[in-house]
């Protein structure tokens, strides 16, 4: 890896959402875990601290030396021994029971042999089933006939985040056949999109890429802030994150831009299941900030952001819930 390039400037510390959440976690910070631990062979002493990162990539963006801190931390996670966190054990149990990272009781499967697959991801098949229905009918209104396949399991992204590399690999093997039936895969979760591209070599599209350039309008009233998903902006493509804003503005939504709109909600990297108190604390601070700005709610494009900010009582909409096709 490239940890040896560290110039000890501390830019990563300044932007880390976990480190700067004082009420939250005893995370020693991205430099200790992502740079020093792998270099100085202190892997053993890092322990669970390697799991206290939301994988938001903010440290990587801030690093002047181009160190891939997130990748370093992922590698540490995959080599971790010792007992798993209770939330991560539950995730593994869910995978062996349902093939998905959360308990899903989805009933809206569409299995008509369409050549396009809508891949809602585990959250979309569980707690955010309403969102899945919204995305599905939006795709239909755009003339994109699609399946939602019960045969397709978790993409494996959350498993990589908790260091269960073999389980993620096993899921990829089990998904290969079901995915091979489709020419086009559309997702509504940036984490799934990233995983499908990086791990499966499938050119999956996030729904933002489908909506880009279309004639859309919005019925939303009031002032709306943004929660720009980490894995959209710093994972998939910063241009796609800019498209999120352009789509909403063109649809006539009154968007309030805020400097912290692209900072992590706290919901990523296995933190929501592993360290729910820290996830909650980061989300609460973000929600307080949105409330101080007196916005009516927040628009995002990631089910984890929706879930994590939504549970703090803020009105959170996915982009697909904010717009409709202009007919």
């Amino acid at each position, binding site marked *: 890896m490239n940890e040896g*390039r560290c*110039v000890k*400037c*501390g*830019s990563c*510390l*300044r932007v880390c959402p976990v*480190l*700067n959440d*004082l009420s939250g976690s005893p995370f*020693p*910070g991205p430099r*200790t875990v992502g740079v020093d631990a792998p270099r100085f062979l202190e892997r053993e002493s890092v322990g669970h601290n390697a799991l206290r990162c939301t994988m938001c990539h903010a440290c990587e*963006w*801030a*690093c*002047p*030396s*181009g160190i891939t801190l997130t990748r370093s931390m992922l590698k540490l996670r995959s080599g971790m021994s010792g007992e798993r966190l209770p939330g991560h054990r539950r995730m593994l149990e869910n995978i062996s029971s349902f093939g998905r990272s959360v308990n899903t009781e989805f009933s809206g499967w569409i299995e008509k042999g369409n050549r396009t697959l809508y891949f809602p991801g585990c959250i979309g098949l569980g707690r955010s089933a309403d969102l899945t229905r919204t995305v599905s009918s939006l795709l239909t209104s755009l003339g994109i006939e699609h399946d939602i396949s019960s045969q397709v399991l978790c993409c494996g992204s959350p498993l990589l985040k908790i260091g269960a590399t073999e389980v993620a690999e096993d899921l990829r093997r089990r998904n290969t056949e079901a995915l091979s039936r489709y020419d086009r895969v559309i997702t509504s979760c940036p984490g799934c999109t*990233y995983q499908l*591209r*990086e791990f499966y070599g499938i050119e999956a599209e996030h729904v933002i890429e489908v909506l880009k350039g279309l004639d859309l309008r919005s019925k939303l009233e009031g002032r709306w802030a943004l929660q720009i998903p980490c894995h959209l*902006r*710093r*994972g*998939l*493509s*910063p*241009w*796609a994150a800019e498209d999120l804003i352009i789509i909403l503005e063109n649809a006539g939504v009154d968007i309030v831009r805020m400097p912290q709109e692209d900072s992590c909600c706290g919901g990523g990297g296995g933190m929501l299941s592993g360290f729910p108190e820290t996830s909650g604390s980061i989300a609460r601070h973000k929600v307080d900030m949105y409330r101080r700005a007196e916005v009516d709610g927040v628009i995002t494009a990631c089910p984890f952001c929706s879930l994590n900010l939504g549970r703090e009582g803020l009105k959170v909409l996915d982009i697909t819930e904010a717009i409709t096709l202009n007919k």
Partner: protein
Amino acid sequence: MNRVLVVGKGAAGTFSSWLLANKGWEVILVGRGTPSTAMSTGCLRSQPNVCRSEIMEFLNNEMMPWTYGSREGMSKIGTSYRCWMSPPHSTWKEGEAPKSVAVVGLEGHPSLQARVASATLNARGIRAESLILPSSVPSDVPLAASLFSDESWETLADELQRQSAEAILLPAMVALEDYHQLDILELRSGRRVLEAITPLSAPGQRLGDIMRSKAAGSGVTIWDGRKVTALDVRDGEVRGATVAGGQEVRDILIDAVIIATGGPLVDGLALKERNISDPFGMFQVVRSNDGLRGGYDSSNGMLIASDGHPMNNVAGAGDCLSSERREYGSGLTEALEGAYLAVQALEGS
């Protein structure tokens, strides 16, 4: 079409972008990572010889006014710092040093080493005592004013009122949008409030924020977190560039380029003897045993290609250029002046 690509979002990159946008160019500014401008002390040590008024206009910001002239301040270890341009709470006019200072440190936090600073100040003939306040901020977490509530600012003002010292030296921690807190603290405490000169901290961040917002305000398109991976060169001219961000890669057409990729950072020039590898493999690189002088070779602002000829539409600015005369502490001013010259070179080409 007059579309220019500027590579690097530090002082040279943002200033040249701003100048070009004001002259009607369509500017795309690409950069990744924190530029060394944002790691500086946030002051200009040496006075610019060219384009002084443009620099002053570029850095002008309503949230934080500047002071100019022979200015002097105190570092976070109590040593003296001289500069030409600084934020108002960082320095005083030479000859008007405070006679007594209370140095505020935070228990267990390295942001201002109050005892060391007091000892240094006493040795310099400035009466100083340290005031160590309790703090809940862990030593790893960079100190930021945003960590404090309005209440804690009031408590601090009350605490400072009890001090007999004429001035208070605080750790550098206020972001641009919080700068007014220092004025309020000065009013409430009745003491001159000074912010310690500290690199790798809030003052450099503020300078970077001002430059960036000025560039954005003049219509520059800023492509954060993206990297120029290749330039398309034909007949001594750059025609296009490849830009990568996340998993996406885009090819764009351009009419001109300013390279302002910086100096002592690994992705700009290598740390080790500035033995740079040109990421584009097309410009002449001057190697030097003097660590401060290596870099790209240029002629009247235009970069020289590997074949020895100056490029028609590629200018360079800032710390990535080789330099014959670089002096310690002159980097920021030189970067800004160099950006001005690079823009003139492009306009004249």
